[in-house]
C-alpha cells in the first residue's frame, strides 16, 4: 500500500515535470552555464584543475539541485494542491518519499546529462571503467542532497523568507555529504582509491532519510 502511494506521487511529479520541463530546462541550462563560467575563473586546462575537479562538479550539481528541490513543494501551493495532498489518504511519509524519488530521478538525469560537458570542457581523462563508480557516487551524493532539499522544501514552502533559508539552512545541512562526495569524486578522477567518503555518504543517507521520514509529518501536518 505504502509503495503504491509512493509510486503514484512519484509518477504524478515526473509526469507534470515531463509536460512542462520547467525544472529540467532551468537546471540543465544553469549547470552548463556555471561550468562555462568556472572556465573563466581559472585556466581549465591546467593540471591543477584535476585536484579540485570533484569540487567543481559538485558545486554545479548543488546549485542545479537547489533549483529543482526548491520548487518541489512550492509548485503545489498554487490552486491549494498541497492542502489537497495533505488531506488525501496518502501518508506524509509516502508523499515525502514519492517526491524525493521523483526529484532524485530528475536530478540524476540532469547530472548524467551535464557530466559529458564537464569531461569535455575541463579535459578530464575519462575511461570506461570509471562510469560505474562515478554513477554510484553520484547516486549516493544526489540522494543526500535530495533528502535534505525535499524536507526543507516542505518546511519552507509557506515562509516569507524562503530565499534566505536556502543558504542559511539547506546548504549547511548538505555540507557533510558534499565534502564526502567531493573527496570521493576527486579521488576517482585522479585514479586514487575512493577512501572513507563512500562510507560517510552511506551513513549520511541512512541517518537523514530516517530522520526525514520520521519528521516530515511534523513539518507538513503538525
Amino acid at each position, binding site marked *: 500500500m505504502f509503495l503504491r502511494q509512493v509510486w503514484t506521487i512519484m509518477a504524478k511529479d515526473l509526469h507534470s515535470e515531463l509536460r512542462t520541463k520547467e525544472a529540467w530546462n532551468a537546471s540543465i541550462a544553469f549547470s552548463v552555464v556555471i561550468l562555462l563560467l568556472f572556465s573563466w575563473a581559472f585556466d581549465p586546462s591546467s593540471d591543477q584543475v584535476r585536484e579540485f575537479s570533484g569540487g567543481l562538479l559538485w558545486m554545479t550539481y548543488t546549485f542545479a539541485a537547489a533549483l529543482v528541490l526548491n520548487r518541489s513543494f512550492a509548485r503545489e501551493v498554487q490552486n491549494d494542491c498541497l492542502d489537497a495532498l495533505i488531506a488525501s489518504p496518502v501518508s506524509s511519509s509516502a508523499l515525502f518519499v514519492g517526491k524525493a524519488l521523483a526529484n532524485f530521478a530528475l536530478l540524476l538525469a540532469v547530472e548524467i546529462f551535464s557530466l559529458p560537458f564537464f569531461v569535455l570542457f575541463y579535459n578530464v581523462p575519462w575511461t570506461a571503467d570509471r562510469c560505474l563508480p562515478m554513477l554510484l557516487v553520484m547516486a549516493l551524493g544526489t540522494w543526500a542532497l535530495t533528502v535534505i532539499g525535499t*524536507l526543507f522544501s516542505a*518546511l519552507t514552502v509557506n*515562509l*516569507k*523568507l524562503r530565499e*534566505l*533559508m536556502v543558504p*542559511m*539552512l539547506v546548504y*549547511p*545541512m548538505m*555540507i*557533510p555529504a558534499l*565534502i564526502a562526495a567531493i573527496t570521493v569524486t576527486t579521488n576517482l578522477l585522479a585514479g586514487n582509491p575512493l577512501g572513507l567518503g563512500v562510507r560517510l555518504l552511506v551513513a549520511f543517507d541512512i*541517518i*537523514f532519510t530516517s*530522520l526525514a521520514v520520521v*519528521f516530515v509529518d*511534523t*513539518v507538513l501536518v*503538525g
Partner: protein
Amino acid sequence: MREKIIIGLAVFAGALLAWNMNTIFNGLPDELNQGAIYRIIYFHVPANILGMTGFGLGMILSIGYLVTKDLRYDALAASVTEVSLVFASIGLATGSIWARIIWGVWWAWDVRLTSWLVCWLIFGGYLMLRRAVDEPNQRARFAAVVSILGSVNAYISYKSIEWWNTQHPQPVLSIRNGGGMAAGMEAPIWWNLLALACFSTILVMVRMRQESVAREIDTLRRMAHAQ
C-alpha cells in the same frame, strides 16, 4: 525569586571566575612548547563544551516539545540554543586566535573546524527560521525539526577529533582518554566550565523571561485585534 537566583548565581560565578583567573594567570607556569598562549584553552574548551552540550540539550527539549506540544519546552529550547550559539562563537574566535599563534594561520579547513562552523551556521539558521515563522506552534515544530537534524552535525563535530586525524589537537582532557595535561593544569578548565555554565544559566533564565513576556504581548495583541 527568579531575580534572587540570578543575582546569587552571578555573584557565585563572578567570584569563581576571578579566583580562577588568578590561578590561570598568576599560579600556573607557561606551557613548555606553546608559551603563554596555551591559556586560551581555559576559555576555548569550556565555551565549546557549553556550545555543544547546549545544542544537544536544545535537541532533547525540542523532542520534549514534539511529544508534549507544550510551548514552554520550545521557549527553553530556543533560549538554550541562542545562548549556546554565543558560546560556540566564543569557541570559534578563541580557537582562531590560538591557531594564528601556533599554526600561523587564522583558519584551517580540517574536519573539526569545518564541522563546527557548519553547526554554527545551522543553528544560526535555526534562529533565522524562528524569525521567519509567525504562528507559535508552527514555529516550534519547524524549529524542533531543524534542531534535531542539526544535532546530528554537532555529534559528528564532537566525534571528529577521534574519527579523523585532524589538524585540530586530539582529545587532551582526562575524561576523553586524553590525559595530555598535568592535573594542576587541567583543573582550572573544569572550574571555568562551572563559572561559565552559571553565566549561561543566567542568560537562559533572562532569555526565558523575554520569551514568556513576548508570548504574553502576542496574546494581548491578538485579543485586541479580535475585539
